[in-house]
């Protein structure tokens, strides 16, 4: 495994943003994470330093032995990397906000293409995640299920025949599975239907959140829909139900866009046009303004208004404009104002070929 090579990671093409997937005009990516723990070892919240080290080396060894995350994998020890690089891993959706605070005893193992990540000693001993572009929960489940089987041959999992996989938080017990799809829903937001849609989804027992999980807002019209319940249903049943709910949401979004085009065309064109203006001509750009304008451009690309720009270029910008990425690209620390200038320059450069067809 390659240790602590952020530079190499930064050069990666981020598969879940840059590659094509089903229904990618609205569904950006599909993710599943499994929470697993080692039998007989205290969970990180109650663990001593020795316990943490023990579970860390046990998991790292199992990953190495099972070869389940591939030959050119990365491993990052959280006590050996800079705070800004933790932020960078967070922006790439490879670690959680909670994990950013972790240091000794915590590590992150990654498949070379970032499609699989294993957080060691987050809230649970293992948080395994698989991430693919577009709407493909079933495929993601197949990938992560196989990996989980391989790891389980090396590690005795904490399991109870009635309660399933035992986790530090009882909200994860059972399958330990959280499946989610990231959706871009400008049509529902612009037409004022998003609130009703979110409430409808909540009533079906699913959660809707901002892009970086709990406690973040919905900048860029990006929403993450996931299952709440992990007990009483099989993994396949959860995925099937979630899949159904998300397909409905995608249909609502499509209808909302058609409706806007038919009944409120200038409002929609204005939204896309202003976003175009900002991204092409601004010299300072806050993170929020950038995300919202990128959402506008993405809407325009989806509707065929900009044939010269690829959807994936816009997707990748959603990642590149984040603070830690900007500073890594710049190769130095940038304060908030400097970042806004650098961000505007980066966006202008990347979108220089963006020409409005109309």
């Amino acid at each position: 495994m390659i240790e602590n090579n952020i530079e190499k990671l930064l050069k990666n093409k981020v598969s879940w943003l840059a590659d094509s997937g089903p229904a990618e005009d609205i569904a950006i990516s599909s993710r599943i994470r499994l929470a697993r723990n080692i039998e007989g070892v205290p969970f990180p919240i109650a663990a001593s330093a020795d316990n943490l080290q023990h579970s860390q080396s046990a998991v790292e060894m199992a990953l190495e032995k099972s070869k389940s995350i591939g030959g050119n994998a990365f491993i990052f020890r959280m006590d050996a990397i800079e705070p800004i690089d933790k932020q960078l891993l967070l922006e790439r959706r490879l670690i959680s906000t909670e994990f950013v605070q972790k240091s000794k005893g915590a590590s992150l193992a990654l498949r070379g293409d970032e499609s699989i990540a294993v957080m060691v000693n987050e809230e649970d001993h293992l948080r395994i995640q698989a991430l693919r572009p577009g709407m493909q929960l079933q495929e993601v489940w197949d990938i992560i299920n196989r990996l989980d089987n391989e790891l389980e041959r090396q590690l005795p999992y904490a399991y109870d025949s009635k309660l399933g996989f035992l986790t530090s938080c009882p909200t994860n017990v059972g399958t330990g599975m959280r499946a989610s799809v990231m959706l871009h829903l400008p049509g529902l937001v612009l037409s004022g239907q998003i609130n009703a849609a979110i409430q409808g989804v909540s009533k079906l027992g699913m959660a809707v959140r901002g892009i970086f999980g709990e406690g973040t807002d919905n900048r860029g019209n990006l929403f993450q829909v996931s299952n709440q319940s992990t007990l009483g249903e099989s993994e396949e049943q959860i995925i099937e139900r979630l899949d159904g709910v998300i397909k409905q949401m995608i249909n609502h979004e499509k209808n909302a866009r058609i409706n806007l085009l038919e009944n409120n065309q200038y409002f929609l064109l204005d939204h896309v046009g202003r976003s175009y203006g900002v991204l092409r001509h601004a010299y300072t750009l806050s993170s929020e303004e950038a995300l919202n304008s990128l959402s506008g451009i993405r809407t325009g690309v989806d509707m065929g208004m900009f044939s010269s720009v690829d959807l994936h270029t816009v997707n990748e910008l959603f990642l590149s404009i984040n603070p830690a990425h900007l500073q890594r690209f710049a190769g130095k620390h940038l304060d908030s104002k400097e970042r806004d200038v650098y961000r505007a320059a980066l966006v202008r450069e990347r979108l220089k070929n963006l020409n409005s067809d109309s």
Partner: protein
Amino acid sequence: MLCDICKQNEATIHIQEIINGEKKTLNLCGDCAAKKSKNDPAFDIGGFNLAEMLYNLSENMEIPGLKLPEEQQEKAGADDTAAKLSCPGCGWSLQGLRKTGRVGCPQCYKTFRSVIMEALENMHRGKLHVGKKPGGSKDDESPRKMLELMNLQKELDELVQREEYEKAAEVRDTIIQLKESLKKQTGGKSK
């Protein structure tokens, strides 16, 4: 991040409201969320109310003489309260569980079983794991089918109550089929 209301405890619940297109984020600790959900009916996010669930959880743990698993009851003695219970596996206490919403080790699920089981009912769609088992197999299909049967029965009752007889008939047929297949399975096993 500290709780918006008491500004003392770590906020563990983040709630977003969109009112007339304006976003509001509320960051709360478990205690304040529980209080708020009690006083503010609009706080119910439909079907799954995390705050209410936490409230129930914390309330349960404050009741002295809460029913404990038998072996714990013997150990603790009749006068002891549930609040003094701690896990022999990791030393985790009920207070720890209440404060963080987390347990300390796999054994905690046995130690705090009665408290956890009640909370689980509010969190999840069922009380029994029907998914993957270590070893990757799901050889026994019957728990899943039993569960489905229970859900369908409930649905049938509701449909009849709402006088939606056509749909009720469909559900009834599914129930009959499911019962048949369960009979075959369990019958096959016992003979």
